[in-house]
């Protein structure tokens, strides 16, 4: 079946466990984060030119691709850090407003965050990536009156001050989420 006509049925494939490693340069206050498949990511700080990186954290997560069971199309999500639900901030934030309007209609909104592999360069999921992810999670719902809406994190007004809750496994060794 031609892909453009396919009513895709997505399935997660090539699941890989790993860590979201977040680093900060203490000279420039720049941040980067990336996916690591190491068994235990190094927490050792290091120097790189004029930058001095410290490791802020390594939280467990997964990486995956989606494959359509009908047409075989594969969509890669190597750039997806995780999903975040807005916990409310300012009324000027589009994500905050969308979350509240949607909630009244039993639609749960989540923002898809991408890894920031380079300082000050923000990436976003493509429309195809967002559409496939939405279809996958909506297909798993059991409640008929519930919907999932996964949107681009570009809707956030203040990414650095965002109070959203990112779905990743923080502090698993302690069983309790750190403050």
């Amino acid at each position, binding site marked *: 079946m031609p892909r453009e006509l396919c009513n895709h049925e997505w399935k*997660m494939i090539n*699941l890989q*466990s790993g860590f979201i490693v977040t680093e900060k340069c203490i000279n420039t206050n720049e941040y980067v984060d990336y996916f690591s498949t190491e068994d235990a990511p190094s927490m050792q700080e290091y120097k790189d030119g004029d930058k001095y990186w410290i490791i802020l954290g390594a939280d*467990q*997560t*997964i990486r*995956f691709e989606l494959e359509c069971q009908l047409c075989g199309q594969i969509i890669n999500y190597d750039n997806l850090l995780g*999903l975040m*639900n807005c916990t409310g901030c300012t009324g000027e934030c589009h994500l905050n407003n969308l979350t509240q309007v949607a909630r009244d209609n039993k639609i*749960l909104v*989540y923002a898809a965050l991408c890894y920031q592999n380079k300082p000050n360069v923000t990436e976003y999921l493509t429309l195809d990536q967002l559409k496939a992810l939405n279809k996958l*999670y909506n297909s*798993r*719902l*059991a*409640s008929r009156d*519930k919907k*999932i809406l996964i949107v681009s994190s570009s809707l956030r007004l203040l990414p650095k001050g965002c109070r959203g*809750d990112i*779905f*990743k*496994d*923080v502090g*698993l060794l302690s*069983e*309790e*989420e750190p403050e």
Partner: protein
Amino acid sequence: MKISELIKKVNITPLNNLFDRDITGVFVSDMVSDLMAFGKGGNLWITIQTHKKIISVGAMIDVSAIIIARDKQPLEEVIEAANLSEITVFTTGLSTYDLCHELYEAGIR
């Protein structure tokens, strides 16, 4: 099986309002990323985690309820979030293993 029926058969205690959902299966994991990857709507989620994230991820996957094993107690804010998300949270003194055994004996396959 409905949640209301499950309470009569298994040694679990509700911590908030009862939302009487159909149980379509059981998912056991202490990792939210695991639930994101493999969880399905209607699953009864068993975990020992007590943080607020179990409610937001549980709501996204549309779990039928959450059972926290080994007598772990979530904070009040977790219970409030569970009511808002219409997810019943249970606690039990049973270990995860024993709880699974009871669920199986109760007829959840």
